[in-house]
């Protein structure tokens, strides 16, 4: 694992989806057994680039996601390495029994990619806004679940996921937001990344919340509060060692996620803390609500996903310390 933090809070030139496509393109170049199956959403993540280079390794299952997961499972059983993409809501809620049994229980390497996680679904609104997609996959015993933060991390993690012998679920941000990491950064599945050291509190975030956690850390520093920041890109298997160390050394935890807090990263971390090192924890994320339509910056404020929300949570948790 070697990474370089960009940390300038500037917009990434590339879309995150290109991180996925660039990685799969290279995987396909190296191995004819790697295939991509889409559900009539190829245009949404630029699968045309895979089509052009490897037409025999791309399949369209149409708007029939449950079948697509079964197809992917059968293809995996025949020896292929299938990635399968649709919007996150379909990739989780709509196909859950198929993902659980045909892929998960059956122990086939099916790599499911759900795009537009949480508020990034923006103008597609409530019907397309997954706040609980990871919750479903966290309940699959042998699943790997990741929530990449930007292009570089998406690229690196996609390559790692291809090596996993059982079901994986990846959240895929389609657009380009903030650049967090320099290209060429490497990450290990199941290993969180400490981005800033600190002693008063630890902020653990993933996905779009990583840059916001870094902004919060900078604001807190101005006030004399020393915050550690961890990017927990892999929700399962969870880096328990890093969490316990942070709890012991800083004595307070704030989690930040673009997901329901009752069944996501924060609750998974609370599970670890309760069993190993109980310290006060505050949860930034979706608080038992449905999605709605709107521009992403509006939604981030509406659901309290801003750096100032993390700052407020830190102050609250410190008061409980």
């Amino acid at each position, binding site marked *: 694992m070697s990474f370089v933090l960009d940390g300038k809070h500037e917009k990434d030139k590339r879309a995150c989806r290109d991180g996925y496509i660039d990685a799969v393109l290279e995987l396909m170049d190296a191995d004819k057994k790697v295939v991509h199956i889409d559900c009539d959403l190829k245009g949404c993540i630029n699968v045309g680039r895979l089509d052009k280079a490897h037409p025999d390794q791309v399949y369209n299952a149409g708007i029939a996601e449950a079948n697509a997961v079964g197809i*992917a499972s059968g293809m995996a059983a025949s020896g292929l390495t299938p990635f399968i993409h649709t919007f996150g809501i379909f990739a989780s809620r709509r196909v859950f*029994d*198929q993902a659980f049994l045909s892929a998960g229980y*059956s122990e086939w390497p099916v790599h499911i990619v759900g795009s537009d996680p949480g508020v990034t679904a923006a103008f597609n609104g409530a019907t397309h806004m997954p706040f609980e997609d990871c919750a479903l996959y966290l309940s699959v015993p042998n699943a790997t679940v990741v929530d990449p933060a930007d292009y570089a991390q998406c690229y690196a993690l996609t390559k790692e996921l291809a090596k996993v012998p059982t079901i994986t679920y990846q959240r895929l941000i389609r657009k380009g937001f903030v650049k967090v990491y320099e290209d060429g950064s490497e990450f290990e599945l199941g290993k969180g990344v400490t981005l800033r050291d600190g002693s008063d509190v630890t902020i653990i975030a993933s996905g779009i919340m990583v840059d916001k956690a870094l902004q919060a850390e900078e604001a807190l520093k101005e006030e004399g509060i020393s915050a550690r920041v961890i990017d927990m890109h892999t929700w399962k298997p969870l880096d328990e060692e890093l969490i316990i160390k942070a709890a012991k050394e800083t004595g307070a935890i704030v989690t930040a996620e673009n997901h329901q807090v009752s069944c996501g990263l924060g609750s998974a971390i609370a599970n670890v803390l309760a069993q190993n090192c109980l310290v006060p924890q505050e949860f930034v994320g979706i608080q038992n609500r449905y999605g709605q339509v709107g521009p992403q910056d509006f939604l981030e404020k509406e659901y309290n996903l801003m750096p100032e929300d993390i700052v407020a949570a830190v102050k609250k948790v410190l008061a409980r310390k």
Partner: protein
Amino acid sequence: MSKEQKMQELREFAAEIRVETLKIIGSRGFGHVGGSMSLADAYAVLYGAVMKYDPKNPTWEDRDWCVLSKGHGGPVMYATLGLKGFYPVENAYQLNQPHTTFPSHTDHLMTPGVDLTTGSLGQGISEAVGAALGNRAQGRDSHTFVFIGDGEADEGQVWEAAQFAAHYKMNNLICLVDNNGRQLDGDVNVVMSHGKGIGAKFDAFGWHVIDVADGNDVEQIYDAIQEAYKVEDKPIALILNTVKGKGATFAESTGAHSSQPSKEEWDEAIKVAEENLAAVRAQKGA
């Protein structure tokens, strides 16, 4: 071997499968007798005359695949695989015991010769289509056989899989429909009917459909599969008009989905099935 000799062999094999299927479910005392017994003849044809497989190497790459999408019929598959040497057939008398490798629904992680895990109806056919597509993509000359039930065909996923297989012109896929007319709550036509018929539905989805008038006749099934092998650009559906519980004295008349008869009824059913096997064998010399 003449065709008639081959058919005689298959009739014997089907009768053996029926005896063992009853013994397997009888070892536990209850189970899915109906939808297991209806398929004994089709299993006899597949494993007795049609499929290429190696009992000593169940995951041989170039094998034909068999997927029991109506996974609750597991016992008929366990009987068949046991009789063909994938394992001693008596091993399957551990059906549904704690830590068994013979669960009520077929599971590829547990039982040698089971290619894909099934049980949640509708999922097995998608998995089978994926396997057939994957085998074709890797240049393998093999067929995938998938059994679905007429009750199972209530599931929308069956028809998603059907349209996919037709779209990708998968003539290496043969779906055998156990059209026994019954599902758990009663007659298919009462619980949830199939419009113009299940064959008409597959036809509308672009499949080559073969109606097998007697789905419990090994020769009709064998002939239908030979016809299926000639189809060039479509998946093939064999509509097997079967009798649920065929050959189980306590179940054939009721068409029950699952049965829990008394010890005496089990003994009687196995005795009758064994007598039937002896009668079929006696025809060899006739």
